[in-house]
């Protein structure tokens, strides 16, 4: 692996975002946390993450809004957007797909699952 994969973790539960970002840092990723949809869009603009782990249910700018904004992102490479959500219905997955999410993780996400996914993405 050349430069480490950069990951933006977005969750309005600040502790959840911080914990996951800290863990990913320890795992060797360049991880950063944002605690709202609007902050996530700003942060993504700034750091051009390879991967965004995005909580869907946030007040104000929701995960869906963020995903749409990142899809419209002009500069390449576009980030891989992973939905992290408590809802696990097929209809929720479909909605996530349509909003431009590439992957879908159900809370509480297991760090091993996230790392495995990130490894796969890095090998592409």
């Amino acid at each position: 692996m050349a430069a480490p994969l950069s990951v933006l973790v977005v969750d309005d539960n600040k502790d959840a975002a911080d914990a996951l970002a800290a863990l990913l840092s320890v795992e060797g990723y360049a991880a950063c946390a944002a605690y709202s949809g609007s902050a996530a869009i700003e942060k993504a603009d700034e750091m051009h993450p390879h991967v965004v782990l995005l909580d869907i249910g946030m007040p104000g700018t929701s995960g869906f809004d963020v995903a749409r904004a990142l899809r419209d992102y002009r500069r390449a490479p576009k980030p891989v957007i992973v939905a992290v959500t408590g809802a696990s219905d097929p209809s929720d997955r479909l909605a996530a797909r349509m909003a431009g999410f590439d992957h879908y993780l159900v809370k509480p996400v297991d760090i091993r699952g996230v790392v495995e996914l990130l490894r796969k993405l890095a090998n592409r």
Partner: protein
Amino acid sequence: MLNEKLPLRDSDEFLEGLFEGFLAWDARWRMTHMNGAAERLLGRQRGEVLGKTWHEAFPHAVGNPVEQMYQRVMRGRRAERMEYFYAHYDRWFEISAAPLGSGGAAAYFRDISELKRREELQSRLAAIVESSDDAIVSKSLEGVIRSWNAGAERLFGWSAGEAIGQPILLIIPPERHDEEAVILERLRRGERIENFETVRVAKDGRVLDISLTVSPIRDAAGRVVGVSKLARDVSERKRVLRALEHASSQKDRFLAMLAHELRNPLAPIRNGLQLLRMVDPASEPAAQARAIMERQVDHLVRLVDDLMDVSRITRGKIDMRREPVDLGSIVLSAVETSRPAIEEARHRFNLSLPAEPLVVDADYVRLAQVVANLLNNAAKYTDSGGEISLVAQREGDEAVIRVRDNGIGIAPEMMPRLFEMFAQAEESLSRARGGLGIGLALSRTLVEMHGGRISASSAGRGRGTEVVVRLPPAGEARQRGASRAQPAPPGGRRRVLVVDDNVDAALTLEALLRSLGQEVQVAHDGASALAAARERRPDVVLLDLSMPGMDGIEVARMLRREPGFEAVRFAAVTGLGQEADRRRTREAGFDAHLVKPLSREDLRRVLAY
């Protein structure tokens, strides 16, 4: 009626052909005729009867009403008729008696036991129909109402006089007129319809949920000639059923939500544990992980506490310890609880407390819980940077708390269920704002247990919300007791300088001090505190210790050295209350050390020197 002139012998053949029994006797009561039907009906042979007197032939009947009738006929020479139950034969007879030209008399009679049985049955049925709570209606095949019982009068509001003769469509709503045709078609085929749930309209236009049982009425030949309907009002049952379904689905949603809410803190806790395994326990990430886990465990504890409250409420097991307390101090305690939520969302917060103590008869902890709930809701349902205000004041006799925000508001359709257990503004699983949907229900129960009322209003989605709690005044005696317990500060009105970089904390303290009748000035950093102190020369300075730049200790040290500040009282306001902390402020020249959250009593002590 038998012709008196008819020669009886010539009519023997005629008499034998009768279904009725026939007896005749002469002027001296000697039996002269008895036909075959009479033999069968009375179970006697002609040979035993004819030639004897009536009294010899029928000794069991002597003196009974039938004999009395015969006596009248014999004497009065006028025909009579009666119905009589002969216990001897265990049968009802209809008996006609007529005088004969010979001076005797004839009787003919028939067994009407079956008729009587039917009549009795019918009158019993009629009594049942009339006394029934259900509406029982019959109608012709053309749909014209033929009978209408008291139950129908009660249920539909039309009297029997008004309804009979009208088309049945009178009580069927227009959109269901087709239904009637279908029912009639099935009945023509002889089917019975049981517990058919539908709606009907009463005279006053009320729509009734009813259960219909419809049966065909047949004539003697078995042809369907009409329809009887039994309508039972199931509106109440339906309402209860709907309420139960609603409660059950709300409980289901609640459980789904609860699982979601309980799971949310688990991810950071699990990741924190993982992190602790991977990093040096003394490192910054380890400290961060521990802080995260502590906060999330606290959050879980709060959720579980709320759940325990729900369970106590539903079992009616909430203990209240009511005593006369100042509403202002309850509000301040709640504000301290909710401050983190308000600050995190960067809301502006305005607090207004009454100038005089407003005593209510309340459970301090429970009422503070209510107010904190309302503030947390306001913080949660208002997007970042909003405005929240809390006004506590006397309105008429009542102590009133108003919590207002300019947040997402409440949709009108949500209003009626706002205070129901498990009701929430956002009911999807991807609800952004979390929570169990029990805060307002809990608040209402607690306020009602205080003899108060709670209400909410909103101009609609996105238009903010106001929740108002009204509490009855504390009893007179208690109020006097309470005012003795809380005398005005003996020092009278003082000039107080409040220094806190946290604007909301400073404002809260300002409101509290004003409610104690003090003159208050506020500064938000060390430099402006020095300037304000030099200009206004306060009697008391309340200093927050942890301010960026020049902190409270430094401000106190500098002012202490200046001439004119020797008699000024300095009080440290801090979250730290250990003995070491107190020693540090004492050594820095503070006169008092106050630990947040401040109570009115704390302030009274500082002011009362």
